[in-house]
């Protein structure tokens, strides 16, 4: 698993991404012995996620501004098995490219009808679905005239430590990919394209909203014996 993991994930030592320079460790990562490290924590309680928590367009009195979209897909492990009961949390900028966060200084308007956060638990097939609006691109100060491609942040929290993933989903055909050091830190065999959703006619609702399909693949689960399973 370690080898494929290294191949998939961007290196923290990515100097084009300015914020990494004082934060990426300088020492090589140590390898844990293979038999270690794949503990599982208790399943997350389903009742803590509300039925409407996955609809970011219905959290206020009125609808947010922007293109309505549906994002849907499955969470799978490397063997193709569904990861059910995983907590997915999403957060994003509004249609103008502004986060509802006290530190976001981009002079674009906030939308009183958009908080930009949602969550759901994956179903028995690993499936998830969010309804939201398409986030806007926004400037940041990484390099002169730097702009982040439109993206939705995804956090996947499953019962297995090895499966923990935080990533970003992008939209197909974004012209800003070429100058974005975060997207481009992912290299090799088109791995970056695995962060780009596919426009989906099936998920597009006539006279209502566009649909995007995006599957997420996390590490496999490996059973590890615990002390109290051992004889004696």
């Amino acid at each position, binding site marked *: 698993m*370690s080898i*494929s*993991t290294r191949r*998939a*994930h*961007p*290196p*923290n030592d990515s100097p084009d*991404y300015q*914020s990494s*320079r*004082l*934060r990426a*460790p300088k*020492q090589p*990562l*140590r*390898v*844990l*012995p293979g*038999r*270690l*490290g794949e*503990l599982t*924590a*208790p399943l*997350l309680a389903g009742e*803590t*996620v509300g039925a409407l928590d996955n609809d970011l367009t219905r959290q206020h009195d009125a609808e947010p501004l922007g293109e309505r979209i549906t994002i849907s897909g499955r969470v799978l*492990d*490397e*063997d*193709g098995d569904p990861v059910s009961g995983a907590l997915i*949390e999403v957060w994003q900028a509004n249609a103008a490219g502004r986060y*509802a*966060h006290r*530190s*976001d200084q981009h002079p674009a308007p906030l939308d009183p009808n958009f908080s*930009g*956060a949602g*969550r759901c638990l994956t179903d028995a097939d690993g499936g998830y679905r969010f309804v939201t609006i398409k986030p806007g691109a926004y400037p940041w100060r990484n390099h002169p005239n730097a702009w982040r491609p439109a993206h939705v*942040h995804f*956090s996947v*929290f499953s019962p297995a430590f090895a499966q*923990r*993933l*935080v*990533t*970003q989903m992008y939209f197909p055909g974004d012209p800003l990919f070429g100058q974005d050091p975060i997207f481009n830190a*992912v290299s090799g065999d088109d*791995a970056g394209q*695995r*962060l780009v959703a596919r426009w989906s006619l099936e998920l597009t609702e006539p006279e209502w909203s566009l649909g995007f399909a995006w599957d997420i*693949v996390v*590490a*496999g689960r490996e059973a*590890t014996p*615990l*002390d109290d399973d*051992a004889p004696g």
Partner: protein
Amino acid sequence: MRLPLTPSQTVGPFFQIGLSTTIGSHVVGEGMPGAVRISGQVLDGAGEPVPDALIETWQPEGAGRCATDDEGHFAIITSKPARTVAGDAPHLDVSVFARGLLTRLVTRLYFPDERETNDADPVLQALSPAERSTLVAVSDDGGLRFDIHLQGARETVFFDR
């Protein structure tokens, strides 16, 4: 055929708007028997606090998480794990996310009152004394202190996951 993994991306500076309270800073209640408060500071290579990091702990009893404050401090209330992988000393698996980190960092927190089991732990045994000291929490004001140095002379040991 194995499916290729979805690559990681940074949690960014604004993750706090997306965190639900489903997983929080209390793995166990503060007054529970065995409850221990683990606090620490996340520091960058210049020794400056990291005010936009997310620390998560993971153990068989459950997961905890806490975003750092403006001074880089975090605190999680949990207990020493009752079960461990055979041969391992009790420890917490710890993930570190932050703006500036494209992929989570993985480390381990060991307990200072487990001197003998720590000495026999195969992961700690593979490290130098200075490296080991970055993974063993220190007793502090009735709880445990676990600072995380992302870079520098006291850089925390991080593991390939």
